């Protein structure tokens, strides 16, 4: 069953208190070279059936209107899982292929 991945991040210009707290914790652990951590959300939507253009439009709408609040967040990526492997298999963007190649992302959001 295809899985569609939606990534949402707090707007760059706004304070991200969770990220700030994590940056502080990293510094205390001796990882001070990481000057900034920002924390977002990943949504995985499993759909029963092929990812049609209609489904994609619906996901874009859901991402903008429900999964994110445009006042405080940006949808930074939607992966419809329509990448391809060098060996010809279908794959989800970011995953590795069964044949060992890396997945080449298809149509981006």
């Amino acid at each position, binding site marked *: 069953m295809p899985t569609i991945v939606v990534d949402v991040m*707090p707007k760059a210009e*706004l*304070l991200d*208190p*969770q990220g*700030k*707290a994590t940056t502080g914790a990293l510094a205390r652990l001796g990882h001070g070279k990481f000057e900034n951590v920002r924390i977002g959300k990943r949504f995985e939507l499993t759909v029963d059936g092929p990812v049609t253009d209609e489904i994609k439009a619906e996901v874009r709408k859901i991402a903008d209107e*429900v*999964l994110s*609040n445009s*006042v*405080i967040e940006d949808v930074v990526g939607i992966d419809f899982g329509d990448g391809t492997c060098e060996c010809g298999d279908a794959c989800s963007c970011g995953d590795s292929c069964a044949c060992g190649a890396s997945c080449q992302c298809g149509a981006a959001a």
Partner: protein
Amino acid sequence: MARIGVVTFPGSLDDRDAQRAIRLVGAEPVALWHGDHDLQGVDAIVLPGGFSYGDYLRPGAIAAVSPIMTEVIDAANRGLPVLGICNGFQVLVESHLLPGGLIRNAHQQFIRRDQRLVVENASTAWTNQFEAGEEIVIPLKNADGGFIADAESLKRLEGEGLVAFRYRGVNPNGSLDDIAGLTNERGNVVGLMPHPEHAVEPGFGPNVAEAMRSGTDGLRFFTSVLESLAARA
């Protein structure tokens, strides 16, 4: 007798306190349920504090699309007075009945304090018993109370007098322009982070200069809505 509905969401904490405040000003509280589509013919609505649906996704976000909110949004757009307190304010913002957004407090901690506020707009359905510029004390308790909006929206809501309350003394959560509460253009929808229903009875209110736990400034939110309903009738 005015009938004022209080919506209970899964996770609401202060619904009973809001009902008590309504009873104290001589109105009849009506319990409304998040899963219903029935507003039971109430004259005004309070969205109480606490949490809702675990505040999953974003605080107030899932409550904003609950069955009862379809009716609340419709009623608010027709002019019915709606007050959102704390999580209720978050629900109003997520419902787009009020502008902007509310994020985790800038200092990343939950805070509870007796908060001084300035009433900036005293001509709404929920603030007409205050004087503009008056200072009041209302308990505040939240983790996600940081009000934000982009520069353009902020300029618009300042310019149009939509800031209903501002924090004085301490800004407890990093809210832009010290904004504690907002109204819509029509003045029937008001939302704020502090809890007026916890400042309605001597002995159980915030500490004020005169005596401990004796602050009752919250009562006037509820007498305001009665005045507004009476003026309309």
